[in-house]
């Protein structure tokens, strides 16, 4: 047994930390948050040059073929740095969907461009309020044309390509849609976390190409969401760790009543609880990346479990980080709110806690029945 990252992964982490310290300081996040751009294009280019975008894409498609351990290490560091880039959409959702369901020619067409960052893609699933659910897909697909409204679409204003879940004669299918084509209207949406792009996309008879077998789309959606949940759990654990470090550092330096506030048990125990939540989430994420790397049968349970603890831990860490900072923590100028916003966004983006908790139990039931 060896329940730790490999030495290669550890080297990659150090490299990622160095790169992001330089290329993704808080002011880069604020630039996107304050609307100066929908994402940090320079950072994205840098990440492409480092080979990160194709970390888990096989070398046959111009990826680095480093595997999922590497992808998760990167996600954790991007989470820690709050990187304002379409990493999840393009790399964890769209590329995974193409890998899972695409024809050989589709893979050859798109994966190299995604790996090189020449193309940004996204995954258009939601149609307004609700958790991922096959019956909630109403967008229509017929005769190579797609019509309907998807919102929110993560990174929907910056992506050029979307994998869209739609309903056709045989059920739910996936389609590849060029977002720059005619028949498409994109509207940027106000969001709790403006450092990540969200859009509403109206499709009116827009050209669409089937991805995978007709009527089998939902299986791919579930597979892609489970896998993205694990990678996102690392992003969340990275963010939670950063928020805990911020709070801990502040509690050591800030004095009240003539002593560091970190010497008061109210602060101490609050941060101990955040530490506990974060470590449990980290351990569940470790199990997730093992399941992902091994493509194990336990993957759905591992994914749901990792996501449930990571979403809770990240939110808890960020809201208590504000609380430990007191008044200044509530100001725009301190970075506390950047983490808090991101925590809530990530906890919703792939479906709510309720949805994933339900999935945990569904998987436990299957197991115990067997």
């Amino acid at each position, binding site marked *: 047994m060896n329940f730790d990252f490999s030495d290669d992964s550890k080297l990659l982490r150090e490299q990622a930390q160095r790169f992001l310290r330089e290329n993704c300081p808080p002011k880069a996040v604020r630039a996107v948050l304050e609307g100066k751009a929908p994402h940090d294009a320079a950072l994205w280019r840098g990440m492409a040059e480092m080979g990160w975008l194709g970390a888990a894409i096989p070398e046959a498609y111009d990826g680095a073929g480093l595997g999922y351990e590497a992808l998760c290490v990167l996600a954790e560091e991007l989470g820690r740095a709050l990187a304002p880039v379409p990493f999840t959409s393009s790399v964890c959702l769209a590329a995974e969907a193409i890998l899972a369901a695409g024809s050989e020619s589709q893979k050859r067409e798109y994966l190299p461009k995604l790996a090189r960052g020449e193309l940004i893609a996204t995954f258009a*699933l*939601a149609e*307004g*309020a*609700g*958790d*991922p*659910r096959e*019956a909630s897909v109403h967008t229509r697909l017929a005769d190579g044309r797609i019509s309907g409204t998807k*919102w*929110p679409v993560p990174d929907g204003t910056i992506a050029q390509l979307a994998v869209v879940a739609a309903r056709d004669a045989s059920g739910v299918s996936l389609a590849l849609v060029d977002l720059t084509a005619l028949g498409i209207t994109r509207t940027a*949406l*106000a*969001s*709790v*976390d403006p450092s990540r792009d*969200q859009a*509403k996309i109206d499709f009116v008879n827009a050209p669409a190409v089937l991805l995978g077998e007709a009527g089998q789309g939902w299986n791919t959606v579930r597979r892609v969401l489970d896998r993205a949940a694990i990678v996102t759990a690392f992003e969340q654990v990275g963010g939670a760790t950063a928020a805990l470090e911020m709070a801990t550092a*502040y509690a*050591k*330096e*800030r*004095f*009240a*009543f*003539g*002593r*560091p506030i970190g010497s*008061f048990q*109210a*602060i101490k125990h609050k941060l101990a609880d955040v530490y506990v939540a974060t470590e449990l989430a980290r351990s569940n994420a470790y199990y997730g990346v093992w399941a992902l790397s091994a493509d194990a049968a336990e993957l759905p349970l591992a994914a749901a479990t990792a996501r449930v603890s990571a979403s809770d831990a990240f*939110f808890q860490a960020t*809201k208590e980080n*504000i*609380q430990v900072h*007191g*008044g*200044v*923590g*509530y*100001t*725009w*100028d*301190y970075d*506390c*709110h950047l983490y*808090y*916003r991101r925590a*809530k*966004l990530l*906890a*919703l*983006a*792939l*479906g*709510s*806690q*309720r*949805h994933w908790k339900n999935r945990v139990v569904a998987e436990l039931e299957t197991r115990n029945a067997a």
Partner: protein
Amino acid sequence: MDFDDTPEEAAFRTEARAFLEANATRKTRRSAAHRYGDTDAAEVARARSWQVRKADAGFAGITWQKEWGGRGGTPMQQIIWQQEEANYETPPNIFLIGLGMCIPTMIAYAKPDQLQRYVKPALRGDEIWCQLFSEPSGGSDVGGLRTRAEKRGDEWVINGQKIWTSGAHYSDYGLLLTRSDPNIQKHAGLTAFFIDMKSRGIEVRPIHQMSGASNFNEVFFTDLRVPDAQRLGAPGAGWKVAITTLMNERLAASENRRPDMQDLIELARSLEIDGRPAIADPAVRERIAEWHAQTAGLTYTRFRVLTALSRGQTPGPENSIFKLVNASKQQAVASFGMDLLGMAGGVMDPDLAPVQAMFQDSLLSAPGMRIAGGTDEILRNIIAERVLGLPGDMRADKDLPFNQLPSGSR
């Protein structure tokens, strides 16, 4: 135990309702939710105009003595007025700090001619007051403030910085707490003043909150000169003055923060989970029931407090319960409401997000509620020490002169 008015109370309620019906619009659920945002000049003007009408009709200082322009009424009348006024659309009450905290402190410490000059204009909303206690060096630790006051002849020269001052940008006067002697124990070296906020040497800068709004200010003093006549209490007796002010902190008005329970129930009715109304989901019902129990518990606790107040008791430390419970509940309800929206929960467009994006707004304002006016932690200390009588924490700052106290790098 009963909820009925006495005949006198009923008569007052009728009078209050008649005034409100004639002068204001009744609220509906669809009334624009009050945003906890900037109070702009137009809103200040509306607030002043409403205040003067209230004052003319005798509803501005209900329990105040007639000599100060009040009605000389009972605490129960005050409660009835608040209950009734809450049903109408009224401008934000920007006079609460002045009339609830500053002026009562003036009445306790200022000279008769000063009271003649300042009390009535404050009551009528002609002059607005703010309170300048908190500093960057110690939000929770008010006694640790650093703003220096140095006596020069008949004047004091003030240098330093205050923070979290509500309404400083539209206030005419302010109650200021300073350190006049850093060489003695921290609570012993404080002196209080009232100041003209339009004086030279005062700069007010709004604080940009994480929610995007600016309800508070930083206030900088650079060689501000204050006549000794504006001192309140003896030099070095500022802590006692401050306690008077803070004791007058009013029973937090029943704020009706939105989203409230009704908003949550409506949201749960309008959404579906797995094809059934969310309100039918037992997990949703459980949470709603728990928050309803808290909300109802606070409502009836308020009735108990009001009953005590109506018998002439003064509000005590047990009132810390209101904000302590509400702030965390507000944050949890906001987060939960967003969860109900699933993948769309993060969207804040009021056209797309249900109930005017109130849940998302609240997620971003609630963290401030857990801090402003006493953090959760300070409120629990107050309950533990002043209600339950548990011993105080060990104090690092008890016996040392202020300028020898340890201080951190932040």
